[in-house]
């Protein structure tokens, strides 16, 4: 794995007896788009807030951009768009970006130029001088994205960035994330919208009940769950069915489900069917979606908890 933007050994956060993060361990390489998936209440936002000192972890051992987590000056190299981001209604879009730049210690002249550029990028240049109170949810989210980028961060945390945004806006946000990756930034996206993360993320972690239950590249996660589907002309002969079931392969009517890493592992099944004279109608490589992987991981975690 290349140089790490985030390297967490252990991260634990408890609120009294409630364990929000149960010793999370995570590695995010630099320059990649990383998607953190999980159902509501899994601890995704708490994890990000802990990295950004918004929440004080109970126990933390790790680094962010090569510095220990909690190192204040490192935050100058970080951008963040929180979930349900709220900016004062009395500020205009331009003023929100300027305020954020001031707090991130960006010189005024530089901030002014960057604000113009960012407003163009997020498509808010036309409404830049209107008050935040008059913006729609999508417009607020765009301004939020712009303010997160005003310090030209090396890593950007986006917590549910497409929440409340219309389909067109979602596409634009996705393009913006891709653009950030092209610029060499690390993008950490928190979301419960699997399809969106799957489209944009290089690497994914699945979180449930305060713990990372699975992590890897999208390719690795979905590939690991590969299976083949073989359909016969008419029901699978009883003898063949019996043999297959003994091998742990499931058969339902005219369909055989084979979990296999590669096509060569399917050959014995084909040979068996040919041996029984049963004509093969169709063979498909069925690739798991991220949703399948997610549901399986979350359900397994639930089962273990019970």
């Amino acid at each position: 794995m290349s140089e790490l933007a985030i390297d967490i050994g252990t991260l634990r956060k408890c609120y009294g007896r409630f364990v929000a993060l149960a010793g999370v361990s995570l590695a995010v390489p630099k320059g990649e788009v990383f998607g953190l998936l999980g159902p509501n209440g899994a601890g995704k936002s708490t994890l990000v807030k802990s990295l950004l000192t918004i929440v004080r972890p109970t126990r933390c051992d790790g680094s962010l951009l090569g510095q220990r987590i909690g190192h204040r000056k490192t935050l100058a190299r970080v951008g963040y768009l929180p979930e349900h981001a709220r900016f004062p209604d009395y500020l205009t879009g331009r003023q929100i970006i300027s305020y954020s730049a001031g707090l991130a210690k960006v010189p005024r002249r530089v901030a002014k130029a960057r604000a113009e550029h960012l407003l163009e990028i997020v498509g808010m240049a036309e409404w830049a001088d209107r008050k935040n109170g008059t913006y729609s949810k999508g417009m607020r989210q765009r301004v939020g994205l712009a303010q997160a980028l005003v310090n030209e961060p090396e890593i950007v945390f986006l917590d549910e960035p497409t929440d409340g945004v219309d389909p067109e806006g979602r596409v634009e946000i996705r393009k913006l994330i891709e653009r950030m990756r092209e610029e060499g930034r690390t993008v950490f996206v928190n979301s419960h919208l699997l399809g969106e993360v799957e489209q944009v993320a290089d690497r994914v972690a699945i979180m449930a009940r305060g713990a990372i239950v699975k992590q890897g590249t999208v390719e690795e996660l979905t590939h690991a769950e590969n299976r083949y589907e073989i359909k016969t002309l008419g029901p699978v002969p009883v003898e063949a069915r019996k043999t297959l079931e003994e091998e742990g392969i499931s058969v339902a009517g005219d369909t055989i489900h084979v979990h296999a890493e590669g096509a060569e592992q399917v050959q014995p099944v084909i040979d068996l069917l040919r041996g029984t004279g049963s004509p093969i109608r169709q063979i498909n490589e069925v690739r798991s979606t991220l949703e399948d992987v997610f549901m399986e991981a979350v359900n397994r975690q639930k089962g273990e908890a019970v």
Partner: protein
Amino acid sequence: MSQFLAVFIDALRLLKAKALFWITLAISVLAAVLYFSIGFNEEGITLFFGVETWENEFIRAGSPLAEMFYLGIFSMVMVNIWLSWVAVILALVTCAPVFPSFMQEGSAGTVLCKPIGRLKLFVFKYLSGLLFAFLQTSIFCLIVFFAIRFRVGTWNPSVFWAVPLIVLMFSYLWSILVTVGVRTKSVMASLLAALLVWGAAWISKVTEEYIYMAAEMGELPTGDGTMRLSDEEQQNFREGYALYSLPYKVLPKTTDTINLLQRYITVEGEREFSMTQLIGAMSGFGSEEDEVTEAALKRHSPVYIIGTSLAFEFVVLGFGAWMFVRRDF
């Protein structure tokens, strides 16, 4: 510095967006213009740019007490009633949501993720909250400064003492507003707490004065004057003074801080302002100073008044800062 500037500019924009700020400013300007309408002629004091005349043999054009009268109106009416009561209440109402709304979900995160320490941020936000009182008082004093020049003929920069004193007095209450706001995230709770402490401070001040009069002067104020106490009764009050004046000692001295203005403003650039002399002149009894009453009014030193009040403020604010630094957002 750029971080402080960012917080400061944000506070200015907040005030600019608040209708109450402009309403208060408009009333302040109106009050200053009314003050400006007071003048003097050969017979006495003129009101509403000369429409009415109030005859007075001691206070009239060219008399030595004219400036003192003008400053007395400034300190007793304009500052003591308008600036230190009504304007402060409006300032508290305007500033009360600053911390609770900052601490709402999605709001604090956008700021706390920046490279700014929490304590620093807390102090910056606290200081920028004093802007309301500072701006209102400064504009008001500026008009008064020119009014005095026009009506009395002297430049009197000592009126600007009102600015730090009003801001200081507001800061005592603002510290409570901030701390309770951080603790409860409730605008109403913080506002009520500030008003409660303010009320308690005022009651403790009145109680202390009452006990002091009885213990040291042997007199108690009654509806129709004063009642003389026996030696034994006076001794009882002396023994109880330490206990009954304890709340006064501990709580911020809001009224006394404002009353310091009467000690700091000068007449004709050198003479001290005398409340008893002015009251005597206005009621037609003469213009002599009552030294005993003056001494009683000035029995607490400015260091004691401001020092103990600031000690209260630092304790309250320290608690607020501690909570702000430690809590999760």
